[in-house]
Structures are given as C-alpha cells and as structure tokens.
C-alpha cells in the first residue's frame, strides 16, 4: 500500500461525501415536489398517463403501479432483444438473442442488476443498447429510488396511509435527478475520451499487418447512467476495464464517484424526509464504515501480492497486478471493487476472478451483507432500513421499552416482513449454489477446480440475487441453466425484497408517531452506528460463513501453503 494509493482513494470518497450533502437535500426537494424547472415536461407525462401527481397512493396501489410498469418494461425489452436482428440501427448486423439469454438479460436490466451473459459489442445492436438497456437503466434506478422515498415517508408522519404517488416519483426522479446528472457526466466522459457515436465498428490494420475490429457506439451517455443508477451493465464486454469505456484515471475518478454518489446521498435524503438529518448521517456512517474497511482489506490483500507469483520471481512491490489495468493500479482497482459491490452497481474496472482470495472475498461479502453498503440507488436505503428495524428490535428491548424507530413501534408484523426480506439473499444464493455445485450441467461451466471454482459459482448467484450484476469471471454463464437460475435469483432478489418492504412501509405508516424521551434510545449516536454495523454483520453475514469458509477462506489458507488445484 502506498500513500499515493490512499490519497487517490481518499480523494474519491471525499468527493462522494462532499456531493452527498447537496445531492441529498436536492433529492428530498425533488421528492417533495419542490423542484419544478421542467414542470411543462412533467405535466406532459401526467397528461399522457392520465395521472394526478398530487393524489397519494396506499401501499397496494403504489406497489402494483411499480410492478405493472416494471412488467411492461420487461416485455418491451424482451421483445427488442429477441427482434434486434430485424430492427434498425444495427450496423454490425447482430442477430436476435436466444429465448434463454433474452429472458436473463431483460430480467437483469429491469431489476437494476445488469448481469451480462452476453458481450455488448458482439451481442447487442445500437438500438438495443439505446432504447432497451439505457431506458431500463433510468427506469430501474428511478423505481428503486421511488420505493425508498415511499418507505422514508412512512417513517416521517404519524398514522397515514398515503405513501406518495408512484408515477410522480418516477417522473420527477428521472427528470430532475437522473437525467441532468447523466447529461453532465456523459459530457464529461465524452471529454475524457469515451466514444458517443453511431458509426459502424472500425476495421484497423495493425503494425503486424493483421486486421483489428475496434468497436464503437453510443457509449458515453449509457456509461454515465450505468454508474449513476448503480446499474453497472457495460456497453462493452469487459465493462469499465475497457479503454473506450473508461480511458483514463480521470474518467475512472468520475465513474467511481458516480457509482457511490446517489446511494450515499439518499441516506441523507432519508434524514431530510424524516426531518432529522442526524438519522441520515448515522446510516451514512455505517455505509461508509463498511466501504472504508472493505477497501482497506482488499487494498492490503492485493498490494500484498500473490505468494505464488512472488515465489516465481515477480517483484512483490507491484502487488497482485493480474487482471488489473495498469492505468488504474492496485489502489483504484481495490476501491472500485468494493464500491461496485457495496453499491449494487456491478461494473468492474478489473477482473475480480484474478484478485487474491481475500481480495475476492470482500466484494462477495459486500453483496451478501444485503447490498446496503451503500447499496443500489433506493434499494440500498430501503434494505438498510430493514436492517435498522431488526437492530432496533433486538437491542431496543435492552433499554426496557418495546422497540421503536423514529417514534414508530416495531412489532410482530414489521419483524416478520423484515425477516422475509432478509431471508431472500441466503435462500437464493446458497440454495442455487449448493445445487449447482453438484449438478454436472452447472459444474461444466466452472473454469477452476478447488475452492476458487466454488467461489466463481457462489459469486455468480451472489451477484444475481443481490442485484449486483458484476461477474467474478471464470464462469460460462450463457447456458440455459445459468440464464434461468440466475434470472430467477435476480427476480426474487429484487421483488422478493420489494414487496415485503412495501408492506413494511404500510405497517409503519399506519402507526402513530410517538414522542421521544430520554427513555427512548437515540438512533444517531456512534453506539447505534456500531450496533447497526454489528447486526448487519451477524444477521446479514453469519449464514454465509460456512460457504465462504469453503470458498475464499480455504483458498487463502491453501494458497499460503503453495498448493494449487
């Protein structure tokens, strides 16, 4: 580890903190309908949809509207992917996706996962990229944020039914938050060298006389929203490790900031909505604490290098550079790996498969802990609030009162729904991984033997169920088995959490808001921050320990002995 490396990490994280403050307040204003500079455009959408934005929705109406809009989005995207071969804007003549792959891809983008079992430059037309994926990059992000706003409102007021209007939330977030930011970031990325072009791929002749196809496309703006909306689906196959998707350390800085900016800001938005910003900072602190700790571990592990390489004579000072881009180095790769997994983004600027065992363990664990550190846009906040309810429930008893959070009593119903939401990840990650580990049709896709192979398998389902979308690598994922099972994991990982969360919102909203006294324990202190972190580790992490012991932990210990598989 070097001081320069840490300075780079501190610069990016510092930028995230600095922008979270205004961005958090601005998003709260957008949510409250106070931002109106595009009011005519906004009204156009409402008129077209026959929506009254001032009309509040109960949890059922809100959830059904969300599910309906997502279902339509899924069908549309599926159709585009299947039919892209006969649709325009396809200069390379890419054919339609198979039914398995199109199902997987459509689910992936609708659920804000962006797991990619295809490679962008060879598997998608420009039309699919622009009208299919980019649209979903916006919509799935707005959906997540809208749901988080609905849940936040439930904590803000006493005894209400109304959680806000889904359509208004969707339109306002897209129009006032995501579009302007994406436009700005897209322009900066173009300036930084990311292509934004509709021209066909370039055939170049190399110095050795061979021909090389250089893929192009309308990449810059899609990359912007892929990061801002914690989508993560790369325009090109190797994602932000590719020089055209992420050419320089400066574009890397912008993109890495963009991954974390909105999820962190939303923690503060929550503070604004419940009219106690300290509550927002407490959640922010827990998220940031995990990110910093995660980066420290990955950075240390990667900077330490691979003992086998060092034994073979590689300079230990360079650290483990396998699978990393030289223009980013170990520090920025470590930060990105933790940011993209913590934030449910899933874009990569290095190959996680090539990390040291511990360096690979941390990204996997960041997802398994529930995608709340800081989690995807919106989904991170509502996931975190689920953990908050559980933390308050267990520890709140210890002050001698039935537990409450922000004046809302936490009872049997909330605990049941919260447990249901938290149960989804272990059920789908461990369930599918265990079956895949013994099923020949699945094991055939795994590249490596020994514990590393198990990590590859475990990571794939972790990424899917956690709606992260990053690939560890080393897994041939475009098979009917993986397309289907990972598709299911993504679906349940998204909606299996959302529906209980919205039911929680309803239950919480209906409760009276009790006054705080010195008998209620404060939920903004360092003590609570530590407690919440502990609960996330224990309730979110303990059930993965046996699996992790068999995967990266075993690999780490075995590697130290010099044994390979």
């Amino acid at each position, binding site marked *: 580890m070097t001081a320069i490396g840490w300075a780079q990490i501190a610069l990016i994280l510092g930028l995230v903190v600095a922008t979270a403050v205004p961005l958090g307040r601005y998003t709260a204003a957008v949510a409250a309908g106070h931002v109106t500079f595009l009011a005519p455009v906004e009204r156009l959408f409402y008129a077209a949809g026959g929506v009254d934005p001032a009309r509040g929705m109960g949890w059922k109406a809100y959830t059904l509207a969300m599910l309906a809009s997502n279902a339509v989005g899924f069908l549309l995207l599926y159709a585009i992917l299947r039919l892209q071969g006969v649709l325009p804007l396809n200069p390379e003549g890419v054919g339609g996706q198979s039914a398995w792959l199109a199902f997987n891809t459509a689910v992936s983008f609708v659920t804000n996962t962006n797991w990619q079992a295809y490679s962008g430059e060879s598997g998608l037309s420009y039309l699919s990229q622009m009208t299919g994926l980019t649209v979903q990059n916006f919509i799935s992000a707005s959906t997540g944020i809208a749901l988080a706003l609905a849940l936040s409102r439930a904590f803000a007021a*006493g005894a209400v039914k109304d959680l806000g209007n889904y359509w208004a939330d969707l339109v306002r977030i897209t129009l006032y938050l995501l579009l302007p930011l994406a436009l700005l970031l897209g322009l900066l990325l173009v300036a930084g060298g990311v292509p934004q072009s509709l021209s066909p791929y370039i055939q170049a002749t190399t110095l050795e006389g061979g021909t090389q196809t250089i893929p192009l496309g309308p990449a810059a703006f899609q990359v912007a929203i892929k990061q801002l909306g914690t989508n993560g689906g790369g325009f090109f196959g190797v994602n932000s490790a590719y020089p055209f998707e992420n050419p320089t350390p400066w574009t890397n800085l912008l993109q890495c900031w963009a991954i974390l900016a909105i999820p962190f800001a939303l923690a503060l938005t929550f503070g604004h909505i419940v009219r106690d910003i300290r509550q927002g900072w407490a959640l922010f602190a827990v998220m940031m604490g995990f990110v910093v700790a995660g980066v420290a571990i990955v950075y240390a592990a990667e900077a330490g290098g691979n003992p086998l390489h060092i034994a073979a004579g590689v300079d230990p000072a360079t650290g483990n550079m396998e699978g990393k881009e030289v223009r980013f180095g170990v520090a920025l790769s470590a930060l990105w790996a933790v940011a993209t997994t913590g934030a449910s983004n899933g874009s990569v600027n290095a190959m996680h498969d090539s990390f040291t065992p511990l360096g690979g363990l941390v990204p996997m664990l960041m997802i398994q802990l529930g995608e709340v550190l800081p989690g995807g846009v919106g989904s991170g906040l509502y996931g975190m609030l689920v953990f908050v309810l559980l933390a308050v*429930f*267990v*520890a*709140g*008893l*210890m*002050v*001698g*009162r*039935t537990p409450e959070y922000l*004046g809302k009593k*936490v009872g*049997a119903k*909330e*605990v*049941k729904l919260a*447990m*249901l939401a938290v*149960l989804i990840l*272990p*059920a789908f990650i*461990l*369930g599918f*991984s*265990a079956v*895949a*580990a*013994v099923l020949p049709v699945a094991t055939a896709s795994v590249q490596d033997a*020994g*514990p590393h*192979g*198990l990590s590859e*398998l475990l990571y794939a389902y972790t990424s899917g169920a956690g709606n992260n979308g990053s690939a560890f690598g080393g897994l041939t994922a475009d098979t009917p088995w993986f397309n289907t099972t990972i598709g299911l994991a993504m679906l349940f990982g998204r909606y299996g959490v959302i529906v209980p969360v919205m039911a929680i919102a309803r239950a919480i909203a209906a409760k*009276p808001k*009790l*006054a705080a*006294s*010195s*008998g*209620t*324990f*404060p939920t903004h*202190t360092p*003590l609570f921050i530590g*407690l919440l972190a502990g609960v996330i580790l*224990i*309730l979110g992490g*303990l*059930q993965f*320990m*046996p*699996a992790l*012991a*068999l995967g990266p932990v*075993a690999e780490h*210990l075995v590697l*130290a*002995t010099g044994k390979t*598989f």
Partner: protein
Amino acid sequence: MDSSPAFHPGEARRTTRGGALLSGPIVRRAMLDAVVKLDPRHLVRNPVIFVTEVVSILVTVLAVRAAALGEAWAFQAGIALWLWLTVLFATFAEAVAEGRGRAQAESLRRARTEAQAKLLLRTDDRALWLPRAATELRVGDLVLAEAGDLIPSDGEVVEGIASVNEAAVTGESAPVIRESGGDRSAVTGGTLVVSDWIVVRITAAPGSTFLDRMISLVEGASRQKTPNEIALDILLAGMTIFFLIAVATLVGLASWNGQPPSVAVLAALLVTLIPTTIGGLLSAIGIAGMDRLVRFNVLATSGRAVEAAGDVDVLLLDKTGTITLGNRQAAGFIPVPGVTERDVAEAAVLSSLADETPEGRSILAFARERYGIEAPALPEGARVIPFTAQTRISGLDLPQGGYRKGAVDALVRSLGGEVPAELRAAVDRIARAGGTPLAVAKDGRLLGAIELKDIVKTGMRARFDALRRMGIRTVMVTGDNRLTAAAIAAEAGVDDFIAEATPEDKLAYIRKAQAEGRLVAMAGDGTNDAPALAQADVGLAMQTGTQAAREAGNMVDLDSDPTKLIEVVEIGKQLLITRGALTTFSIANDVAKYFAILPAIFVASYPELGALNVMGLASPESAILSAVIFNALIIVALVPLALRGVRYVPVGAAALLRRNLLIYGLGGVAAPFLGIKIIDVILVLLGIA
C-alpha cells in the same frame, strides 16, 4: 412506607408469598414436567426448540442404526444425548417458571373453599334467606354475609358495613372496612367477614371471580404470548430458517471438493447456530415477569399490560398517600415577639393533649422530637374543649391555664384582637408553601402559630429524579388549589401537576398526553377514577377500591399502595431488558461456535482450515461435542437470570444500552470461547475425546 430509591424490582420485598428462586420441590416437579413438555404438539409453539427436537430424533435414529449395523456410533450417540439435553433444559426452564407460579396458585386455591351462600329472597328482609352453593350464584343475586361467613363471590356491598379479612387475596391479615356506597364497596369472593354484616350484590359469574382469574394468571394457564414475545418468536424462527438454509446447503457446497459432513455433524452445527439459548428461555422470562409482579402483590390482567408498563412515558400520581404521607403534620412553631419557640411548643402540646386526630398526634411527636417535650398524661379534672366546625378551635382547660389552638382567624377573633404583623407574615408564608397555619393561645394570649405541612415522603425526590432519567414524566394530581399544588410539586420534584383536579381533568390530561404520542400510567381507586383508569395505557386499581375501578384498570394492587406504580414500570422494563439481553447474548454466541465447528467439519477436505481453530481444541470430535455441550449448558446456567431478571438501573436509555450491549453483546461473543475451551479440556481429561 419504605420508599428507598435504590429499590430493584427483582428483589421482592414486603411480599406475602414468595420464597427462594429455586426450591427443591419446584425443581423436582419441574424435572418431571420438562419430560412431559417434550410432546411435539406442545413444543411446536416454540420453533427453535421444536427444530432442535426434530434434529435430536434424527440423530438418535442414526446412532441406533449405526449401532445396529455395527458401525461407529459413540460420537453420534454423544451428539444425540446432548441435543436431547438441550431440548430438556429448555422445557425445564419453562417448567421451573411455571412451577413457581403454581406454588402460589396452590395457596390461593386453598382460599377458594366451597362456600355456602345465604341467598336473600327479598331485598328488604335479611331474615329470609336460603342456603345456596357459591358456584350456583348468578350475577345480580343478593347474598347476606355475617360475621364468620366467607363472602361467596365477588360483589358490591349494597347494604351494611362490616370488617373483612382479605388475607386470602392480599396476604394482609388486618381486617378492612367494607361498606355500601363510596369507594370501599367492593368485596372479593373467598374473603372472611370478621364482624357485623353486609348485603352483597354478586357481580361475577361462577368461575370468573377475581380469585379464579388470579389463580389462572399465576398458574400461567391462560397465558397468551404477548405482542412483543410474538415478534421475538418470529425473529427467532427467521434466524432458525437462516441457519437451516446455511447448514442444508453445506451438503452441496462441501461436495464441490470432498465429502459432505455427516448428518450428526451438520445437526450439531445447526443446533449450536440457531438461537436455542433465548428460544429455550423465552417463555420462562415471560412467566417470571408476571410472577415478579404477583410476588409484589400486583396482578396484571395480561402480559400485554406488563409490557405496556415498560413503555410508559407519563406517570399520573395522586398527591395524597402517594407523594405525601396523606396527613398534615406539624413542621414548625412560630412565636410572636417576646415569646420563645419552646413556649409555643409547650402550649401547643398541652392544647393538643386530648386531640386524637393525626394532626394533633403529629404536634406531640414533633415537640418531643424537636424540643424533647414529653406530653404529660391527661390530668384529672381537665376540661376538654372539642373542635367543632363552627368554632374551629379546640383546647384544654387545666389548673395552670386554658390552652387553645385553632384556625388563625377564628382563634384571633375569639381573643378579640388583631394578628401581629410578624405573625401575619409567617402565616402567609406557610399558606403559600402549601401548609396550614394554626394559632396557639394560653389564657387568652396569642403565643404564636403551628405550621402544619403536607409532608412529602422521604426519598420521593430521588425516585422522581430516577424516573426522569428513565425518560418518564411524573405528574401530581391533587384537589388542592394551584398555589398549594405548585409548592408541593416543587418540593417533591415532580415535572407537572394538575391542581383542583376533577376526574374529567385527569381523563382530559391522559387523552392529551396520548394524542402527543405518550403512554400514560395511573393509579386509582374510586368509581370516578374508572374512566381515567380505562383510558390510561396502564391503569393500576387498588384492591380496596370500587368494583368499577378494579374492572377498568388492567392491574390491581393488592396492597392498595399507589406508589407501587413506579415499581410496576420498573418490572415492565426489567422484563423487556431481560428478553433483549438474552437474545443479544444468544446471537453473539454464534461467532465462537463457528470458530469451534467450521474448522472441525472441513478439516478433512482442507487441512489448512485448521488455522481457524483459534481455541486450539483437541480434535474435530471434541470441538463439535464441546460446542454442543456448551450450547446446552448455557441454557441451564442462565435459568436463574431468566427467572430473576436482568438488574435494572434507572439511567437514560443510551447509558443503559451501552451497558447491556457491553455485558450481553461483547460478553456473548467472549463467553463461549472460554466455555467451549474449558469443556474441551475436560473432555480430554476424561478421555472422552
């Protein structure tokens, strides 16, 4: 009463029933009950322990099969044995808690004899009655109860006055007066009329009398899970599912590279990970909480009420009898110029020799205490001037002179003079401070004044300070005027007061506080308290109160001591804290268990994972067995804590959380490391592993 602020609800005092935490007969009976409770139909109510039982059966079957097939079976049998013990310890904990309640119920049941009632045929003739079994009485029947009769059922006195021994219910053998009308009209079935007679209108159907309800409450027969208990149960069930998934999927995951662990080993891992500690102790904690209230002579109609007590934000306390001693007492002598305090004191004593009121007694006591003046016996030939509402003066004519005391204005007027300015100032000061001034005269000469004060009970200020730290506001309710109320409120240190309070004022205050999102507790005894008692989240009715009040409240204090509201709140908090602390402890235990079992399970596939064996456990078998044994023993070890409750300290929530997190959170992480290591060492020494 003793109201020391250092009271801890766990240490029952002033109780009439109780005893050691675990006595021999209770434990012996509980051991038997623990086995009976293994019935899966009973255990299914407790998901964590039910899963443990299912797993125990599975491992037992496997051990038997292995033995039959001539394979190695000792390890499996050892695991099976300790899994069964885990289940047994859990059912034992519940049985012990129930046993303690049952012992109390027995003593109550003895009081519920088959009484014969004297059923009156006509309301106006006490001579005409028929014998009728108490169990056949119906609501509305009129019965006669005379000296020596057991009152056959709960009811309301409609005629007569009698002294009643209520020891069967309250444990207090001094008889109490029951009379028609007013706030002392409720009688309880099973209590004994000691003198005189009363006519009682029956208000409870057979089987649902106060005594019946008490018995079923302390026995836990009608025990339903409280809302918080249900929520906790769900959390524990959820965690059980978590670990079921984690352990079941290990079969597949471990097959990736090597053999999956055996069923016995997976069973051991599962049972040690699921929260058996809190799962096994949860119902014992609930029963013990109710039990603590009962020992404290308070009956709650439901566990829900006990939990609500822990949540209370506002306490409404009656001034008289709760905050103050109830009677005005002498607190000073103020002389007019030219007279000494001692002269005033002596005159006051002599004028009060025949005064039998508490105020009069307090003057003698105060003079003796302050000036060492011993009151002489009432001399022969003394003429007593009794107090009347007209004169408002009383006194004594003795050979050495005539002594008078009385209301300042009345006495001064009778002497035919003016109040000296100095005395006037003192009198005004006393009135402002909430006291009552009395003037004292000898032979027609004004000597000075006696200050009578509403004395705040000792230690109340400290209690209220403690409550404030707990986040609870105390509100004094009094019929006094604002001025007086303010003075006493300031002296007692309450946060707010309601002066010149009517029952409507109380009700309005409670509604207002509730509308602000606060939970309110109050104590009351009169019929006019009933609406407020019903409105309050916790309503503590006095046993001596009216039937209406007792029905309206959700708790009844058998000692009729409204101060106990404070302890009731503390008991409620203690119950919740105990639950939270043991849950935290149980969950925190898992960390160490992973370090014990995971390396043991996987060491065959990856010998390198032995590095995780930080405790240095002797062998994989001893490691697994030690973890299982620790997991079982910790339940028994914590039974006393579950029954007694975690000590409650009245500090702010933040401090309380820090303290309990440190003890039960960090302690919960550390304890099993030590415990498992010790058990492992013992196993090695015994040559078992």
